[in-house]
Every structure is written in C-alpha cells, then in structure tokens.
C-alpha cells in the first residue's frame, strides 16, 4: 500500500513541477491531468482497504476521470479560442491583464 502512495506522491511531484515550470497552456493541462491521475491511483488503491464491496474509491476515481475529461474539453475549446485571438498558446506571452 505504501508503494502506491510512494508512486502517486512521485507523480504528484512531477505534475507540480510541470504546473510550476511549463508556460504552454496545453502542457499545463497535461501536468494537471498527471496530478489528477495520481489522485485517482490513490482512490483505486484505497478502495481495496475500506469496505471494498462499496467501491467508494473506484467510484471516486471514475468521477475524477469524467471531471478531467470535462475540464479538458472546455479547456481545449478555450485554448483554441485563445489561439485565434492571440496567435499563441504560451501563457507567458498572454499577459495583457495585470493579475
């Protein structure tokens, strides 16, 4: 079980690194998806520990997958719309607002 947690922790770290250092909207999206997969891995693993017949963890993982798909769909629509207006998907160069 600890093995699972170690793996998901590593993946979480990798995803965080991606979120912090990447500047392209698409790679940022990918990094976040890596984070969500790390979480899903945890859910599936924990599902075996606590009342496996209720499948709560697996349900949560499925929920996570479907939400990730929704986010990707809306996000990519947004990224395309952005590309049409700014000519780039580099977040670092889309900074006309002050934040």
């Amino acid at each position, binding site marked *: 079980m600890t093995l699972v947690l170690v793996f998901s922790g590593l993946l979480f770290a990798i995803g965080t690194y991606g979120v912090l250092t990447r500047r392209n909207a698409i790679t940022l*999206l990918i990094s976040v998806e890596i984070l969500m997969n790390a*979480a899903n891995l945890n859910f599936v693993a924990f599902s075996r520990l606590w009342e496996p017949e209720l499948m709560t963890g697996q349900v*949560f993982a499925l929920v996570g997958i479907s*939400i990730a798909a929704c986010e990707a769909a809306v996000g990519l629509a947004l990224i395309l719309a952005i590309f049409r207006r700014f000519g780039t998907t580099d977040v670092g160069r889309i900074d006309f607002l002050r934040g």
Partner: protein
Amino acid sequence: MSEFAAVLPKLIMLVLITLALAIESFGSAVVRRALLLTSAALALLGFVYSFWLLDENLRLWSDALVIDNFAVFTDMVLLVLVFIVILAGLEGMGRSGDAGDFYLLVFLSLLGASVLASAGNLIVVFLGMELSIIPTWALVAFRLTDRDGFEAALKYFLMSIFAAALLLYGFSLIYGTVGSVTIPFQGEVETTRLLLAGIALVLAGFAFELAAFPFHQWLPDVFDAAYAEVGAFLSVAPKLAAVVALVRILSGLEGQSDAWTYGVAVLAAATMFWGTLVAFAQTTLKRLLAYSAIAHAGYALVGVAAGNQPGMEGAVLYFGAYGTGVVGAFLVLSVLAGRGFDDQLANFRGLGRTHPGLASIMTVFLISLTGIPLFAGFWGKFSVFWGAVQGDLVWLAVIGVVNSALSFGFYGRIIQRMYLEPAPLEPAPPALGIGADEINWPLRLALGLTVGLTFVLGVLPRLLFQAVG
C-alpha cells in the same frame, strides 16, 4: 417531509436550466422575455419555499445530500442572487441573442453551488465544486470581441483545474486515512502525517476557490474582464457554497481542529492584509472590488479558523451579508457601464452632484462593505469576529478589525470623490444622461431590493442569525 420536497429548491434550479435551454431553442424576443420573467418568478418562489425547510436537518440518499440550515441559507442567498441577476440583465443581456447561453451557464453554476453547499460526502463536494466552476469559465469569456475576457478565462481555468487537482488529491488522502467519504467522518480518527497532508491540500484547493492569499491572482483579472452581472454572481455564489463545504468538511473531522486552526488563521490574516493593502493601489472600481473581495474571503476565513459554532455560522453568514453590498456595487457599475461609463475611480468625482440617486445608493453599499453598524455588512463582520474571540483567536479578530478600519480608507475615498470633489470639467464628464428615473424598471427593482436587503438585514440581523443558527 419527503425527499423531493426537501430538495425542491434544487429541483427549481433544474427547471431554470431547462427554461434557459428553451430560451436557446425559441429565439423570439417575446418568448425569451417571458421565459426570463418566469425564471425570476420561480427563483423567488424557491426562496420563499426555503423558509419551510429551515430547521429540518435532513440527510438524504445515503447521506449524499445534507439539508441543514447552512444549506438552506445558501439556497436562499443563491436564489435571491439569481433573481437579482436575472432582473439586472433583463433589458441588457436579456435582449441579446446570447441570452439563453448566458443564463444557462448562470443557472448551471447556481445548481453547482447549491449542490456544493449541501454536499454530504466528498464525492458530491468535488462534483458540486466543479459544476459551480466549469460554467463560469465560459461566463468570463462571454464577450466574444474582448480579448481580455479570454485571457482572464484562460488564467482562471488553469488556476481552477490546478485547484481541483489539489482538492482531489487531498480528498484521496483523507479518504485513505479516514476510510469513508461521508461527512462527518465516522469513528475516531488518528492524526497522522498523511491526514495532515490531505487536510493541507484540501485547504489549498479551497483557498483557490475562495481566492485566498497566495492563490488569489485570478480574481482581479476575472472581475476586470467579465460583465458586471457575472462579477456580482461570482463574488458571492461559488464562494458562499465553498465556505459552507469547507466548514462542513473541517467540522466533520472530529478532534482534528488543532491540525488546521492555525493554518486557516494564518491564511485568513494574510488574505485580509494582502487584499486590503493592494486595494489601495487600484485605480478602477472593478479591480478595487476584486481586491476587497479577496480581503472579504479573509474575513470569512476568520470565522472558519475559529472552528466553533458561532465562528462557523459567522463564516457562512458573512457572505450573505457581504453579498448585498458587493452585488449592489456591481449593479451600480452595470448601470454606469450600460452608458459607456468607464469604471476608473477618477470618474467618480462629483457623481454625488451629477447623479445623486446612484451616488447615494453606491454610498450605502460601500458603507455596508466597510462594515459600519446599521448596515448588513456589519453583522457579517461582527459574527465572524465574535466567533474568533470565542475561539481564543483574539489576535485574529484584532487583525480583522484593523483591516476593516483600513478598508474604510479606500471605500471612503470613493465616497469622498463622489461628494466632496467637483466633477471634472476638462475633459467633460462622460455623458451619462441618466437620473434614477431613466434606469429600466427591472434594474431599478434589483437595485431597490439590494438596498432594501442591506438596510433590513442591517437593522434586523435576527433574520440572518435565525436562518443560520
């Protein structure tokens, strides 16, 4: 009370969604208007109905939905809010061909906020959060011709999916250590490093949604770029629901309060200071409201940090009280923006003389936001600070009071500009051409309602406290 009667307000929101879909399908202006008015009436109906749900305290469908007073209060605030938003946009947005899309998104987010506020397990919390957030990305990017909207939407999107991922990971750790997703978590829970990591990640996720200090950057851009109606909606609905969910999760972790009290307290203090101080440097009203919204999230977190009953109630109540002020301010902005009025603070000079009606209403809202007695905002602040004092966090309450006093600096400055400074002659003031009587009736109704709420709740805070406690 049957299950469906208990979730009637949510069913009404579902009906609103289908009505908005119908608007999209039947394009004629008359039908659109009729459907929008029906929606508004339904929202009001749901609000009134909610009174019967107070003090019911139901847990429905395997504890997935909790209808307690926090949830009912949130529903009431949300329904009034959406009523105001519909009215405010009736003559503007409601006339455009995009009205169906716009209100559909608003209603979807509304339902999400409502689900989030009455979520009884972590899965529903996560889903409610996402449902309340996803439509707002599109709302922020709603102006097709406006590049800023898309930029803000992209940043908002990236921030909130990161927050969602943190939240999901935090939930997975909590589920793994506690062994259940149902809130409150059953059984004795041992404080372990893994659980603490989970709580920390969940707090970070919620901090994003509430725009608390280190995670606040998206909010000013979003407020700046979005329609005033969207700003009004965003500053209250998702945040109120998120606070309710946060309160529910944290108080559901029996015996763990040591673990998060100080974390939340520091978060609250930093958020209040940062929001207040940066607000001074702003030159446009929307950005000023944005930074003050960050500060206000900090005040609400003071109540959460207190961790006791009055504090938690105060945190939930806070957004209801604060909402009246900020929604009102956005409505005034919407009136002004409809006349091509730029929201530069400098433009407010002399507004008191050129437009006494609007200026006086604005003054009411600003005073309420500052938290001066006899207005709704005061009771929000009072309740969270009182909770903090009760919870042995006097220092936090003091910081809160100091920040409130400081905040009068920038709110008061606007009032001062409106009344004490002469209208600029050169260049000529924007040709507004409006007295109060030239504002269309739905907007006037919305404004009147907001002002009325600010006063009534300010004078009779019992209404608020009874609803929550």
